[in-house]
C-alpha cells in the first residue's frame, strides 16, 4: 500500500484501497479512474488492469466479494515485487448491476485507461456484454464466476476460471448416481430462467447416461412462492432425491413448505445458485442434510485454499465467499500469465492465459482448455448443523 503511493495518480487509488481496507461498507468510489487518465501505461510504470463489477445495485454483494478477492491478490503480488519488476494496479469500475453499464465501463477502461487486461463480471448477462467489447478490442478478459456457456463461446479473448453450467449438471448427475447411488430422481426448476432450466436439462441428460431415471419433472413460474402442489406432485412419484437447480431466494420457501409435509432436507440437491448466507438464515434446519454442487467451500482440504482463507480472514475479518475465492483465482491466474507473457501487452497476455495448465488456485487446480473454459474440480457441499460443510470433490471431465 505505501509503495503504491509514489505518484499523485496512484495516491488517489491508494486512498480508495485504504478506504476498502478500513472495511468501509458503503460503495467504495470506483478508483481514481478519471484522474488515471490519458496516456496509457509507460513500459516501466505500473501495469493497469481493469475490473468491472456490480459495486452497487441489486447484486452489490457479488461485486464487493469479488473486489475483496482481487484486492487481496493484487496486494500479495505487489508486496512480492509485482510482475517483471513492475507493480500492478487494478482499476475498479461499477456496473451498477446493469449490462449496459458493463458495456460502458469496459469501453472506458480500454479506451481511456488503456488497461492491458480485464477482470469481470459475476453475472453472465454482464460478462456477455463486457466480453463483446473486450473481444472486439482484443483485450483479454477473465470472468471469475460467469457460468453460462455462451460467455466464452467464439470469443478468443474471453476466458473463465469457473466451471460452466454444462460441467456442473454433469458433475451433479455423477455425484447422485455414482456416489449417493440414487437412480430415481425428481426435478424441480424455474422454467423462465436460463440458468435453472439449462442446468436441469444438462443434469437430466447426464443422469440418463449414468443409468439413472428422471421419474418426475416440474417447472415453476418465476415469482411463484407457493410450492405445495409442486411438492405433492413430486413426492407422488416417489423419487429418491430431488434436484432443484434454482436460486437460494426460491429455495427458502420450498424448504419451509417441504418441512410442513415432513419431507427431509436430505431429499434435496441443488446447484451453485444455493450458495448464500441467506439460505442458511432462512432454511438451515429445513435443509439439514441437503447437498449442492459448488465452486468452493471455505473448509475444502486443499493447501492453497487454506492459505487463501487465512489471508482473506486476516485482511477482511470474515469468511470468504465462493465469489471472493474465484475472483482471487482469476486475478492470480492473470498475474501468473502476465509473468509468462513475452511482453506486457494485450495479445501476448491473451496467449499466455490460453496456455495456462495446472495452475494451483484457491478453488482447485485450473487448466484453461481450448474453449477458454476452466478445467477444474467441483465441490459438493452439504448443509450440516446450520453451516455449509465440504463433502466431496467431483472432477467430471468435459466431453
Amino acid at each position, binding site marked *: 500500500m505505501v509503495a503504491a503511493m509514489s505518484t499523485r495518480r496512484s495516491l488517489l487509488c491508494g486512498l480508495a484501497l485504504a478506504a476498502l481496507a478500513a472495511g468501509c461498507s458503503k460503495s467504495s468510489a470506483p478508483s481514481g479512474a478519471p484522474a488515471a487518465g490519458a496516456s496509457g501505461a509507460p513500459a516501466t510504470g505500473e501495469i493497469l488492469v481493469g475490473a468491472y463489477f456490480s459495486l452497487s445495485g441489486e447484486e452489490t454483494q457479488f461485486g464487493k466479494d469479488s473486489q475483496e478477492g482481487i484486492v487481496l491478490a493484487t496486494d500479495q503480488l505487489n508486496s512480492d515485487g509485482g510482475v517483471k519488476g513492475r507493480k500492478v494496479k487494478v482499476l475498479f469500475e461499477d456496473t451498477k448491476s446493469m449490462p449496459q453499464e458493463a458495456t460502458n465501463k469496459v469501453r472506458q477502461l480500454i479506451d481511456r485507461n488503456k488497461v492491458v487486461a480485464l477482470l469481470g463480471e459475476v453475472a453472465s448477462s454482464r460478462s456477455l456484454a463486457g466480453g463483446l467489447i473486450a473481444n472486439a478490442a482484443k483485450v483479454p478478459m477473465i470472468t471469475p464466476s460467469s457460468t453460462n456457456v455462451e460467455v466464452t463461446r467464439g470469443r478468443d479473448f474471453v476466458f473463465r476460471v469457473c466451471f460452466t453450467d454444462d460441467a456442473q449438471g454433469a458433475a451433479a448427475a455423477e455425484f447422485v448416481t455414482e456416489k449417493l447411488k440414487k437412480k430415481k430422481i425428481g426435478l424441480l426448476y424455474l422454467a423462465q430462467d436460463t440458468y435453472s432450466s439449462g442446468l436441469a436439462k444438462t443434469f437430466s441428460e447426464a443422469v440418463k447416461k449414468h443409468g439413472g431415471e428422471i421419474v418426475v419433472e416440474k417447472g415453476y413460474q418465476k*415469482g411463484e412462492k407457493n410450492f405445495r402442489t409442486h411438492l405433492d406432485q413430486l413426492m407422488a412419484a416417489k423419487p429418491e432425491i430431488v434436484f432443484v437447480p434454482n436460486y437460494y431466494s426460491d429455495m427458502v420457501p420450498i424448504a*419451509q413448505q417441504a418441512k410442513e409435509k415432513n419431507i427431509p432436507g436430505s431429499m434435496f440437491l441443488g446447484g451453485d445458485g444455493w450458495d448464500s448466507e441467506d439460505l442458511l438464515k432462512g432454511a438451515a434446519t429445513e435443509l439439514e442434510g441437503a447437498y449442492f454442487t459448488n465452486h468452493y467451500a471455505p473448509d475444502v482440504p486443499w493447501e492453497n485454499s487454506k492459505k487463501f482463507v487465512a489471508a482473506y480472514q486476516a485482511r477482511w475479518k470474515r469468511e470468504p465467499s465462493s465469489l471472493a475465492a474465484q475472483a482471487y483465482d482469476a486475478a492470480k491466474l492473470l498475474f501468473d500469465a502476465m509473468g509468462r507473457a513475452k511482453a506486457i501487452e494485450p495479445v501476448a497476455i491473451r496467449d499466455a492465459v490460453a496456455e495456462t495448465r495446472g495452475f494451483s488456485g484457491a478453488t482447485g487446480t485450473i487448466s484453461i482448455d481450448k474453449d477458454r473454459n476452466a478445467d477444474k474440480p467441483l465441490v459438493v457441499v452439504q448443509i450440516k448443523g446450520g453451516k455449509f460443510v465440504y463433502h466431496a470433490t467431483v472432477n467430471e471431465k468435459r466431453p
Partner: protein
Amino acid sequence: MSGLLSALLNGLAQGAMIALVALGYTMVYGVLKLINFAHSEVFMMGAYAGFFALAGPLAGLPPLAALPLTIVAAMAASSALGVAVERVAYRPILARSGGGKAVGSRITPLVTALGASVLLQNAAVLAFGARPRSYARVPINTQLVIFVTALVVMGALHLLVSKTWMGKAMRALSTNVEAARLMGVRTSRVILFTFALGSSLAALGAVLYCLDQSQAYATMGQVIGTRAFVAAVLGGIGSIPGAVVGGILLGVVGELTKLTSYSGGQDVLTFVVLIAVLLWRPTGLFGKGGVEKV
C-alpha cells in the same frame, strides 16, 4: 385424487388472498374509474411493514398475540401509503384534468399510476435492499387462516357497502360522481376512505401471503398485483363480488395448472382463462353492461 383435492384447497387459499388484493383494484375503479397500478406496491409495502413489526417491536410476544398486531400495523402503514398516493399523485391530476371530461383525462392518471408504481418499487429496493426478507415462522395452519380471514373480511365489506352510510356514498360515487356531489356527498372524503380501505385489505393479504410463503421482497407486488388485477377484470372491474369470485377462480385455476406438465407456464393458462371469459362476457363475470369508453 388426493393430489387434486389438496390442489383445490391450496387454490382456495391462494385465491382468497388474491381476492383481498383484487378488492382494492375494483373499489378504486368503482369510485374513480381509475386503475390504481400502485396498488400492487401498496401490497408490497404492507408486507415490509408486517415484516418490520414482527421482527422488531413484536418479536418477543407469543405468536398468537403478535399476529393480529402485525396485521394491524401493516394495515395502518399501507392505508397511510394508499392515502398519500391518492393525495400526491392522483388528486391534483384528476382535479386538473377536469374531473374526467377533458381530452386525455383517462390516460394521464393512468400513466401517473404506473409512475407511482415504479417509484414505490424502486424506493423499496433502495430502502430495504433487493434481498428477500424471510418472515418469522408462526405455528398456525396458514392456509386455513387465510381462507377464514378472507371470508370474514369479505362478509364485513359486503355489510359495509350495503348497509352503512359510507357504503351508500361509495355506491353513489360509482354511479355518478357529479350527481353524488350535488346530493351533498363529500366526494373527496369518500375517495380517501376507499383508498384507505383498499390499501388495508392489500396489507392484510400481504401479511397472510408472507406468513404462508415466507418472504417479503421488493418486486413481490408485480406477481400478485398482476394476478389480482386480472382477477378484478375477470370478475368485472368495479364489482365487489366479481373481485372475490375472480380471485378464487384464478387461484384455483393456477393451482390446477401445477398438476399438469405445463406448471412452468402457469400464467399462460391463467390468461387463457381470462381471454375465454372476456370473449364470452366482455364486461367480466359480474360486470355491468353499458357503453363506456376507457
